[in-house]
């Protein structure tokens, strides 16, 4: 039996409450200013601070681009020195980030290293807006590597392995070294800034705070962090550097990473829990890196939830700004106490209270699915929630998640075009043609991945994350190109429900009931159902995917199987790299929908396609009325099944759960979805009234945070379309 973990809420005194509230208000203000300068932001609100007057003059290669490790390192290092330094008066930590580096210099792959014209033509034809080639980040660093060595230690490590490997081409090590030198100067510059601010500060608490920040940053320029606060400061620095480079946003589990520092400092009386809450709130103010709390040990026998997991949750709750923390949920382990259940309940309570909160990363589907690829199950357990919808093994895996989308509705579109031309119509033939076009899309991405593997390291290396992985520095190889042991490339299918409902509508209305002819269907699609609302409704209002026992559900399973087979059963053609299927569509179902012509499920040209492996809103028919369980069952059933997630989005009306059974019901729903092999739940709890009002006048609700899909954002920051997407989802629920 483990010793009991304190699961109480942290007692935070007025002083620290005030600091945290001030941070919250500052964030809302900064956000407001950003909106005025830049307009709406539909991606994650990563919390960067806008300095409109800051300019950077990059050094370019002959072709007018920045590429190659050395040139990138040189520019990046200088960028770190030149970029504005920042310390918020209410924060316990220094630094911020000022926008992604690509906004300040053109980084790209050299012309001779880009994929062929044919590849580009396919990408164009099928509107593969995220084709995988040259995708950056989307792997998970192990920041512990940095916590153990510090920036200076990382520099020494680079120099040591340069000596050992003696590479003929020193570009890789040059780049890393130039970047680290810039980072160390940037850290030191924050020490200086803190001293200056201390000098001017009259309030004794804040003066002391600036001096402590100065001391920490001096230390961190030369040595690894020594205590909890320095560890938080180092992580904030890591976040800022990582985010600056192509918006990297993943970290290993935060509670495990901070636990040794936290426990040591508490035991020595150097740290109080409320101070820890403030440091953590300052860290979350800095950036919204994805991370996880809770979960099981790699061996599967121990709980990883500890006191710091609760402290982290409290810090997020009290700060009340967008965050990207996940809780790992698993079936209770024997003899390991009930703290994980307490953590889960607390998270759900906070979600109900705040309207948003953590997301729920689900153990069984992720771990057992991953093991089906042929990896030991222990590696599956190590796959941590570190991206909006995705997981990866910190430090060891290059999975390139979230940089591809296979919009299956485009494969269906071209299949229908071909069928129309063939003039002999059958649903079996349509299926064959769909398979054919789907394979063109899948193979295009695989080819792009082969090219990526060949060229990305010498063009645009993972110059930041290489430092935080096991292998790249030791081997002198970029992590995408043999630097780490595990390389498997993700491919996300999208529009499952759109395609399943389309096949089902054809089967029901054309093949079985004969209420419509194929010719008429083609006409309707060509004219986008012009003046044919009733026929559109005929196709639209069938028992859709999500209705128990519907033919659309059978189609969804068949399409899922075909997609998984095409992605998983054959490696990339040239380098035989493993590809793993997922089903995920981010908030970008609008972007893809805009390029997708009308579909036989009655969807208009340009309307959004379906999300993830989720049924379309309004799917429930006949005796089955909508319920979160019905939707959850459909998502669980159609998982891609190899350890990459297909999220379930739940938008819960607070009216449904405000009575006492509400928390229990949601906790049960989360556990049940985990046991049914679901992989991830993203949840909002808002009252219908508030959401509609905020949609009408977002500026009146600058505080309202929602979970868009895997990421959360200020509602007011989103474009009208994205807000509409959330409102639609909510109303149909």
């Amino acid at each position, binding site marked *: 039996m483990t010793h009991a973990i304190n699961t109480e809420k942290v007692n935070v005194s007025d002083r620290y409450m005030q600091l945290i509230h001030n941070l919250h208000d500052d964030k809302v203000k900064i956000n407001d200013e950003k909106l005025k300068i830049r307009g709406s932001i539909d991606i994650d609100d990563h919390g960067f601070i806008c300095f409109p007057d800051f300019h950077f003059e990059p050094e370019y290669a002959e072709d007018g681009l920045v590429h190659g490790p050395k040139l990138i390192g040189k520019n990046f290092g200088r960028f770190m020195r030149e970029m504005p330094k920042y310390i918020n008066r209410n924060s316990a930590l220094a630094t911020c980030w000022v926008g992604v580096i690509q906004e300040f210099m053109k980084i790209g792959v050299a012309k001779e290293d880009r994929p062929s014209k044919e590849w580009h033509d396919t990408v164009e034809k099928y509107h593969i807006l995220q084709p995988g080639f040259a995708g950056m980040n989307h792997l998970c660093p192990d920041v512990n590597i940095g916590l153990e060595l510090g920036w200076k230690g990382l520099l020494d490590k680079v120099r040591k392995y340069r000596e050992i490997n003696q590479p003929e081409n020193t570009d890789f090590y040059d780049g890393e070294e130039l970047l680290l030198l810039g980072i160390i100067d940037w850290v030191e510059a924050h020490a200086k800034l803190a001293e200056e601010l201390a000098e001017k500060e009259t309030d004794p608490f804040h003066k002391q705070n600036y001096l402590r920040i100065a001391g920490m940053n001096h230390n961190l320029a030369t040595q690894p962090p020594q205590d909890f606060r320095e560890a938080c400061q180092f992580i904030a620095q890591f976040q800022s550097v990582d985010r600056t480079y192509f918006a990297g946003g993943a970290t290993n589990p935060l509670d495990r990473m901070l636990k040794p520092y936290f426990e040591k400092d508490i035991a020595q009386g150097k740290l109080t829990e409320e101070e820890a809450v403030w440091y953590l709130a300052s860290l979350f103010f800095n950036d919204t890196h994805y991370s996880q709390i809770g979960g099981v040990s790699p061996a599967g026998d121990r709980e990883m939830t500890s006191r710091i997991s609760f402290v982290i949750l409290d810090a997020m709750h009290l700060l009340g700004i967008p965050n990207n923390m996940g809780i790992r949920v698993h079936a209770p382990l024997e003899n390991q106490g009930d703290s994980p259940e307490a953590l889960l309940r607390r998270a759900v309570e906070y979600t109900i209270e705040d309207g948003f909160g953590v997301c729920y990363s689900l153990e069984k589907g992720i771990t057992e699915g991953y093991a089906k690829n042929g990896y030991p199950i222990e590696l599956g357990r190590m796959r941590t929630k570190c991206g909006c919808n995705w997981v990866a093994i910190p430090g060891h895996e290059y999975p390139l998640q979230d940089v591809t989308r296979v919009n299956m509705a485009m494969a269906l579109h071209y299949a229908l075009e071909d069928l129309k031309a063939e003039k002999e119509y059958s649903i079996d033939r349509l299926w064959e043609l769909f398979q054919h076009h789907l394979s063109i899309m899948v193979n295009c991405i695989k080819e792009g991945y082969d090219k990526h593997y060949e060229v990305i390291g010498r063009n645009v290396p993972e110059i930041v994350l290489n430092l935080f992985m096991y292998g790249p520095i030791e081997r002198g190889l970029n992590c995408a190109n043999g630097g780490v042991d595990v390389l498997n490339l993700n491919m996300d299918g999208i529009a499952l429900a759109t395609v399943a409902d389309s096949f089902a509508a054809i089967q029901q209305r054309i093949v079985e009931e004969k209420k419509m002819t194929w010719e008429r269907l083609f006409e309707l699609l060509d004219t986008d159902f012009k003046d044919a*609302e009733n026929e559109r409704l005929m196709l639209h209002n069938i028992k859709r995917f999500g209705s128990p026992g519907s033919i659309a559900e059978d189609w969804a399973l068949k399409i899922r199987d075909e997609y998984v087979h095409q992605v998983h059963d054959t490696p990339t053609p040239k380098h035989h790299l493993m590809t793993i299927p997922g089903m995920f569509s981010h908030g970008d179902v609008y972007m893809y929908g805009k390029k997708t012509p009308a579909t036989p499920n009655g969807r208009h040209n340009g309307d959004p396609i379906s999300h993830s492996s989720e049924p379309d809103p309004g799917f429930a028919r006949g005796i089955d009325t909508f319920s979160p369980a019905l939707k959850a069952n459909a998502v669980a059933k159609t998982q891609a099944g190899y350890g990459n997630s297909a999220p379930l989005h739940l938008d819960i009306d607070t009216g449904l759960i405000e009575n006492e*059974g509400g928390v229990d*019901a949601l906790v049960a729903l989360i556990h*049940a979805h985990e046991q049914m092999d679901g992989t991830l739940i993203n949840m909002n709890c808002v009252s219908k009234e508030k959401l509609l009002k905020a949609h009408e006048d977002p500026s009146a609700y600058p505080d309202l945070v929602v979970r868009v899909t895997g990421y959360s954002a200020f509602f007011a920051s989103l474009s009208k379309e994205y807000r509409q997407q959330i409102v639609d989802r909510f109303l149909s629920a």
Partner: protein
Amino acid sequence: MEKKGNIFNIQHFSIHDGPGTRTVVFFKGCNLSCKWCHNPESISPKRQILFYPEKCVGCLACIKNCPGKCHKVGENGAHIIDLSTCQRCFKCCEDCYAEALVAVGEEKDADYVMREILSNKPYFDYSGGGVTFSGGECMLQVDFLSELLKRSKEAGIHTAVDTAGNVPWERFEKILDDTDLFLYDIKAFEPERHKELTGVDNKRILENFEKLVASGKEVFVRIPCIPGSNDDQLPLISNYLEQFPQVTAELLPYHAMGNSKYIALGSKPQIDIPNMDKKVAARLKEKYHFI
């Protein structure tokens, strides 16, 4: 032969009809007709047509294809439905892709219903929930009910029956062994008031209630509270229930949710008052010892 039941809704995630998260199966047909019934489509045992004119796209399919000539366009362009010559073919609903005309009530066999119940078993297991059979009056289809209860119990699922209790006691006997919990509605105490409000007196209802409590089964009383209709009965019900200290009673405050369905059925709600105020409900609960 496989038994079939007439049901009109399966709700997959209810936290209001017994412990934990529950799947609720609503049976069609009731032998009361409470003035406030919020499931008016549950009263008739027959399949019925619901009409939502705001969804109509004017395709005229119903008018063209109805063998009973029940659908007409009135002088002012309004869609008139006269079901006196209806042949109950439900073609109009099938043809109405806009879902302005919807048939309510479906014959389903026990396998179908069990499949849906079982698909939610993990939710029951984690929440201490189960299945609740409701309606309408589910005990009017007692053979079908009894089969579903048996099969649910065999699958290790907690079972609840939501009833108004106006059936012969023998029907209770048929299902006693397979029912873990009864949700028992008491709508009025005085027989004549009960008759006024629901169409039948409550003699048999209270007798069954007492027998049920005596049988040792877990019984949970639910009292709908409709301001201006049955609120005079609350003190009497509270008083009556004092002799059954083992029984918990819950007050269900009125909500107007079913009113649009009266209109869709071509009738009018008999009660048209706003939802009951939460604070008023809380005061009544406290006063009469309901939860």
